[in-house]
């Protein structure tokens, strides 16, 4: 499990991809594309105050972020999922904004990690 404090745990990510540059590059492409889609879904769910959709999108994002060893953003996504499940979404806007900021910071960190394993 990646540390919840760090934006990215590069050593864990590299273990997961077995230091494979091509695989990491492919995963990064998938991640960037899917992140955009799921963040849009989550944003819309928050705007519509749709708790069930917040829970679903939060859950999906949590899984993706955990796979990329992005502990901090994964914890925030988990928080959104929890809010959605409980039905109490009063603070959802603020947490969504935090998740946007964390995922924005994450992408350059992932690029840096990829550069580390460049053949």
């Amino acid at each position, binding site marked *: *499990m990646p540390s919840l404090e760090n934006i990215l745990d590069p050593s864990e990510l590299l273990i*997961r991809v*077995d230091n494979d540059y091509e695989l990491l590059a492919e995963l990064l492409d998938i991640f960037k594309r899917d992140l955009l889609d799921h963040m849009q879904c989550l944003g819309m769910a928050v705007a519509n105050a749709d708790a069930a959709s917040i829970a679903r999108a939060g*859950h999906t994002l949590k899984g*993706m972020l*955990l796979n990329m060893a992005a502990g901090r953003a994964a914890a925030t996504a988990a928080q959104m999922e929890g809010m959605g499940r409980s039905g109490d979404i009063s603070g959802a806007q603020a947490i969504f904004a935090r998740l946007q900021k964390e995922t924005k910071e994450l992408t350059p960190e992932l690029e840096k990690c990829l550069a580390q394993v460049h053949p």
Partner: protein
Amino acid sequence: MNILVADDDLLSRRLLENVLSRAGYQVTAVRNGLLAAEQLCRLGGPRLALLDWDMPEMDGLGVCRKIRQQQDQNYVYIVLLTAKEAKSDIVAGLGAGADDYLTKPFDPEELKARLRAGQRILDLEDRLVEAREEMRFKATHDALTGLYNRGVIMDMLRREISRGRRERSSTAILLCDLDRFKGVNDTHGHLTGDEVLRETARRLLGSVRSYDLVGRYGGEEFLLILNNCDPASVLNRAEEIRKSFAEDPMETTAGPMKVTLSLGLLRSIDWEDRAAEALIREVDGALYAAKAAGGNCTKMANPRVSVAVPALPQG
């Protein structure tokens, strides 16, 4: 070994595919539960499965339940992959038929270790099934010739009698006995006698159609059940079998040996409502008559009309 990976998240799927391919598995990856169930339920499908819990179309629990409903296929070892950690979720997963679970994000070494444990279970199942099939074969087949044993061929005869009456189809039974077989044992020894019995079984099996039945009835007696046969030509078929022995000496370790058969024949048009045992007595009587006539011939039991054995063309 083949393994099925089912996950709607492409990222997870690619990661799992990579780890498992590197570990030597042949991976089939699908994006929803319905496709997973399809793959796992097909004949010869993967027997090891790694299923995400939350999936569209059918979730991991649904796939587990569907697989466990299939009684007639090999065991599939299922590992659920889930972000759920609550005890109640784990209990629900195992209750639905999963064998194990792993929480996301998975640790590659732990994943491989758990799959190795699954493979051990599957290997054990294979060995048990193999042993059961071997025992089943031994219980139903004659050890020397590999033909059905007496108990089984008699059961089959009873079934065929009922079926024939129900469907008004034509059946015939042939009881064959090797002529002067005791002499083979006495002159050449029992091992040569065994060779003759094995070759007899091989020739009898080769002389009938795939849906006819052949069993070892006694020491050197064999019972053949010929289904859906033409009553008018079945005597010819019996004669063809007899001639295939008489005209082609057997190769044995004691040298070439001419072996002949005596045959008793009974057709369903002649057996009315009698039970299997009574029919055997009847056909045994015909076999006795063939022996009394010097062997190497066929006699029909209870013929309504006297039937002459037609001469077969030579060659």
